[in-house]
């Protein structure tokens, strides 16, 4: 009896907790509400299954608990029931998978009007690079990283000269424009994660990874590192500010390009 009751309470408690607890995701600030919707679908399907299985179990424990003189039924198998259940499960799983795959294909295929922004991770800070006037990011090389060229932009690449370099500071993005985040690391694995944007992706040294999104709300958002990258990992916060177009341009105007940043050093070496 007690056991059956506890099982029922577990289901009731879990469901109540789900609906009543104050712990829920942050308000979304990107176009990935598709993801939220998929999660909601998943919650419904799995929630129903969980409740059904545990309640059924509770019923069995209550109804078929041992009493003097009881005898269990002898029923090795029931093909019909088994295949029927298999089919239902397959349907449930498909209902989860299909929307998921559709959203994933959106997630990996970047719209052509997205602007590129490069994020560079290093222990334990974030830097950024924007393509500059030509709209193209120059190539980079970790071997070229040094105090003057912290992002390792290849100086010989003309595309790189006008790139805007934001070293260890906040990133600004214009609201409503799709961006493709190109993720690069010069030391270990990191992961660029803004909970409000829902999207995240690891950065791997020696390769460039990406994800894209469209910021839909202005405001200040915290960047978290979501891949263990050494003892400074939990401190590796950053800031992304989503601005209106004017604010964004104002900010952009104050930033320095790679050419500007490396100029004093070139003069210095000329002496």
């Amino acid at each position, binding site marked *: 009896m007690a056991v059956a009751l506890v099982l029922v309470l577990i289901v009731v408690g879990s469901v109540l907790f789900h609906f009543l607890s104050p712990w829920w995701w942050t308000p979304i600030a990107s176009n990935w509400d598709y993801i939220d919707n998929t999660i909601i679908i998943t919650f419904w399907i799995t929630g129903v299954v969980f409740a059904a299985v545990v309640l059924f179990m509770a019923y069995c424990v209550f109804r078929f608990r041992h009493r003097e003189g009881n005898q269990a039924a002898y029923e090795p198998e029931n093909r019909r029931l088994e295949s029927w259940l298999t089919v239902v499960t397959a349907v449930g799983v498909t209902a989860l998978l299909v929307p998921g795959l559709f959203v994933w294909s959106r997630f990996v295929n970047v719209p052509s009007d997205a602007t590129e922004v490069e994020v560079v991770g290093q222990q334990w800070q974030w830097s950024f690079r924007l393509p500059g006037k030509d709209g193209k990011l120059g190539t980079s090389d970790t071997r070229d990283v040094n105090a003057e060229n912290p992002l390792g932009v290849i100086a010989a*690449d003309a595309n790189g000269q006008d790139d805007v370099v934001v070293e260890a500071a906040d990133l600004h993005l214009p609201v409503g424009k799709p961006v493709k985040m190109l993720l690069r690391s010069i030391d270990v694995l990191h992961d660029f994660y803004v909970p409000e944007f829902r999207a995240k992706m690891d950065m791997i040294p020696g390769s460039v990874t990406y994800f894209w999104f469209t910021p839909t709300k202005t405001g200040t958002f915290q960047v978290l590192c979501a891949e263990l990258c050494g003892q400074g990992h939990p401190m590796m916060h950053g800031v992304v500010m989503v601005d209106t177009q004017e604010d964004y341009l104002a900010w952009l105007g104050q930033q320095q390009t790679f050419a500007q940043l490396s100029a004093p050093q070139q003069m210095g070496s000329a002496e």
Partner: protein
Amino acid sequence: MAEATANGLGQHTLDSARTHDATATSVTPTEVHQEHPIKLYLVVWAWLFILSTCSYLVDYFGLHGYLRWSLILIFMILKAGLIVAIFMHMAWERLALTYAIILPPVLVLVFVTLMVFEADYTLLTRMAFFGAGP
């Protein structure tokens, strides 16, 4: 494989071992003798030499591209097949064992295939973002 068992090469003890068992309910070790004519081994040996020479010649003549790769693979598979089938007596084992051993490596092949794509993708991003290479 089935033919190999059927053509009577070796494994003549199989049947006798079973009848033997049947009569003696007591426990007797069944030892299966993999006896095959020595000549068979010599022939295989010779073939392995020939195939190795062929694969060596692929390099010696400096063949290139798909021709080279497909020849290498063909000779490799033939050699591996001979070793496993004849030298390791797989051809005369019962199919239960054969499949139990041959099938799982398919998982490695899946892994290999995926890693080909993965590695190509890595190379692609490296070329695109880091330039063609030092």
